[in-house]
């Protein structure tokens, strides 16, 4: 909320009754402003900042304090997707930036440090600050310098902060955003887990999952055509061993932000209904929400109780972003089944896509390939990881397919008869009648050309050596040769 001070003072004249009963304004403190509980008490407190997905502990304080926040800007190269690196600009070394938690009425002394090896000047616009620019002009900082400014956290709520240095879009697109929670004076209701999740869209010169270091693509950003849409700045940030964790019977509170720069998020958790949503980060609650809209530069607080164990997949329900641009995260709930609520069928295999399996074998295979020591066994393991979720959705995890709909791969005469044809089908898709093991199928397989040569080689090596099949390895070079010599519709996916 950024109300010019003059307006705010006017408002306070006729709205003094807004101030909470907790107000501790000493005499002579001047005109009352809603949310201003007077000067800070006690010793200054150094705010504990946390990296996502962690949230600092609740405050439990009954007086306004002076809180010192020290945030360091770091320009870092990190993985945006498996095998793909990107130069992120960050608040605190992570995307999103460090989580800041203060209490309404606190006086916040903010220190923004720009690490000396950084290339860029940076600043910070905190949406929770009342004052022109939200601190941006006061915090404009060259590399190797530090800025300080002070504000009073007048309004409770969950607020986005972001860099606002020109070109603003590029700074935000590179990951310069995070959340600040201003707790109400009485604190928030206790829950079992609090987590920090923030969506952002990313624009790279190379295609989705194209390996190597990828540079920022300004034109794609202007066109609002992201290569990646991600939770917490990386495809792997909140899946596999990094999935959020909770137990059946517990209540989870998510602070969900959207840094943008461009897209609005339709935030949804598959298999859950939000019991409560403080939509737009405001003070009002909505109940029983399936999907909540989070604007770019906005945030929400969602809470839900876990009744059934399993993997709950968070998505941007603009669903191509989830399955084709990376907007997937997982919350794993452990505990006893409750078949009266849900039969217990695992959701992972359908919804998780290829994120269900550990990416470790894929990374191992890539390293081995780079060093020229790739074995067929490594290829099979890496291929299995990619097969799960991508191919298994139709051909099934056991390779049996579905009778009359999806042909089997297990013991398949059609698959094993012609290696080159098999590569071509995965690359370019297949439409029309085929006969597999004596049974006719007439269906459509979309091209899987969005997968890289080595991924396709590994998948084919896996299927040609599983479930009773036995064949030689498929090399990335063979896939590359076919890719170069055949045509396919671009951008085809699952």
């Amino acid at each position, binding site marked *: 909320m950024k109300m010019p001070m003059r307006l705010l003072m006017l408002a306070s004249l006729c709205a003094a009754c807004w101030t909470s009963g907790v107000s501790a304004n000493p005499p002579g403190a001047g005109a009352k402003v809603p949310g201003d509980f007077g000067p800070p008490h006690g010793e200054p407190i150094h705010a504990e900042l946390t990296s996502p997905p962690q949230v600092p502990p609740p405050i439990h304080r009954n007086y306004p304090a002076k809180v010192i926040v020290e945030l360091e800007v770091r*320009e870092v190269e990190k993985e945006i997707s498996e095998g793909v690196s990107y130069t992120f600009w960050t608040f605190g070394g992570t995307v999103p930036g460090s989580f800041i938690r203060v209490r309404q009425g606190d006086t916040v002394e903010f220190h923004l440090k720009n690490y000396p090896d950084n290339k*860029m000047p940076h600043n910070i616009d905190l949406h929770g600050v009342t004052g022109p*620019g939200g601190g941006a002009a006061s915090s404009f*900082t060259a590399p190797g310098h530090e800025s300080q400014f002070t504000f009073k956290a007048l309004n409770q709520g969950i607020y986005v902060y972001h860099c606002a240095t020109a*070109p603003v879009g590029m700074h935000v697109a590179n990951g310069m955003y995070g959340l600040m929670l201003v707790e109400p004076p009485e604190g928030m209701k206790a829950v079992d887990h609090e987590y920090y999740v923030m969506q952002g869209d990313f624009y790279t010169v190379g295609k989705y999952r194209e390996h190597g270091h990828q540079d920022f693509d*300004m034109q794609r950003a202007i066109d609002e055509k992201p290569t990646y849409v991600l939770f917490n700045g990386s495809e792997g940030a909140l899946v596999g061993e990094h999935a959020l964790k909770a137990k059946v019977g517990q209540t989870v509170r998510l602070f969900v932000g959207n840094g943008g720069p461009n897209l609005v998020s339709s935030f949804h958790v598959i298999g859950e209904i939000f019991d409560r949503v403080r939509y737009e980060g405001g003070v009002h609650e909505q109940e029983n929400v399936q999907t909540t809209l989070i604007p770019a530069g906005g945030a929400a607080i969602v809470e839900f109780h876990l009744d059934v164990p399993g993997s709950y997949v968070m998505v941007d329900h603009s669903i191509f972003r989830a399955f084709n641009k990376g907007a997937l995260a997982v919350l794993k709930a452990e505990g006893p089944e409750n078949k009266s609520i849900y039969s217990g069928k695992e959701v992972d295999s359908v919804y998780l896509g290829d994120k269900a399996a550990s990416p470790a074998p894929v990374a191992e295979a890539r390293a081995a390939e780079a060093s020229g020591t790739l074995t067929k066994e490594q290829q099979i393991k890496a291929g299995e990881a990619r097969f799960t979720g991508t191919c298994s959705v139709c051909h099934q995890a056991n390779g049996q397919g579905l009778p009359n709909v999806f042909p089997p791969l297990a013991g398949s005469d059609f698959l094993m008869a012609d290696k080159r044809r098999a590569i071509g089908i995965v690359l370019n898709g297949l439409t029309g009648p085929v006969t597999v093991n004596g049974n006719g199928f007439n269906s459509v397989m979309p091209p899987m050309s969005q997968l890289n040569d080595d991924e396709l080689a590994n998948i084919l090596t896996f299927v040609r050596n599983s479930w009773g099949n036995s064949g030689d390895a498929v090399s990335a070079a063979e896939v590359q040769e076919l890719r170069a010599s055949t045509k396919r519709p671009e951008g085809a996916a699952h």
Partner: protein
Amino acid sequence: MKRRTAGLAALALMALAAAAAAADTQDNPYLPVDGADFRSALSPSGTGAGTGTGTGTGTVHVAGFLLQRHPVTNAEFLAFVARHPEWRRGAAAPLLADADYLGHWQAPDALGPAAPPRQPATRVSWFAAEAYCEAQGARLPAWHEWELAAAASRTVRDARADPAWRQQILDWYARPAGQPLPAVESSAPDVYGLYDLHGLVWEWVLDANSLMGSDEAQKFCGGGALSVSQKENFAVLMRVAMLSSLRARDTGHALGFRCARDLAEPPQ
């Protein structure tokens, strides 16, 4: 075009110093950049000390000038410091250079392993850079001069509309920071024969401090660069943003400079 220092005595001193510095300039000669009516990313009123004259149409006239072929190197700056001990690290007044001034040099009069001789001189304040140039009978280029020169590609004088050229510049910003700087003239020269206007270091300009008045700092924040007329030219915006974040005593790990001269002045 107006010099900041004036007076006959100063001129005489500068002539002497210029002769002494001639050795440096042989390796880093001043090359001509033709004058032009130039569409600047900054509105003419946005700059104070710039040499550009506003025409009221967003275009500025920049007179022809001379610009050094590459950013001043550590070796060149070492030679300057040797002749001007008042600009050694530790000797320069804190008002004129911050605590990190030449901080990567092994000693106030020695470069050492962290400052290779052909690497651009960095961690130099505006005051020190301007003093270096004045010792050569030169000055820092004004923003509009630097912008005009930096608009060139290998083949044309104004490549700013070329998306590939722009992306090349943006790629430098996208590359991780904190790695040792390459030597000057490691990449190809532009159409003027100038090197490294992009892709190596930030460079001081004469009017860095007046690119935006203090009340105009807002224009780079929040609402975002409202005064900047070519919003798609982010590459230029980055320069302006960087320069306007600095005070004249500040130094930076990737902040260097090169010198300019008026065309009218006879070079030596």
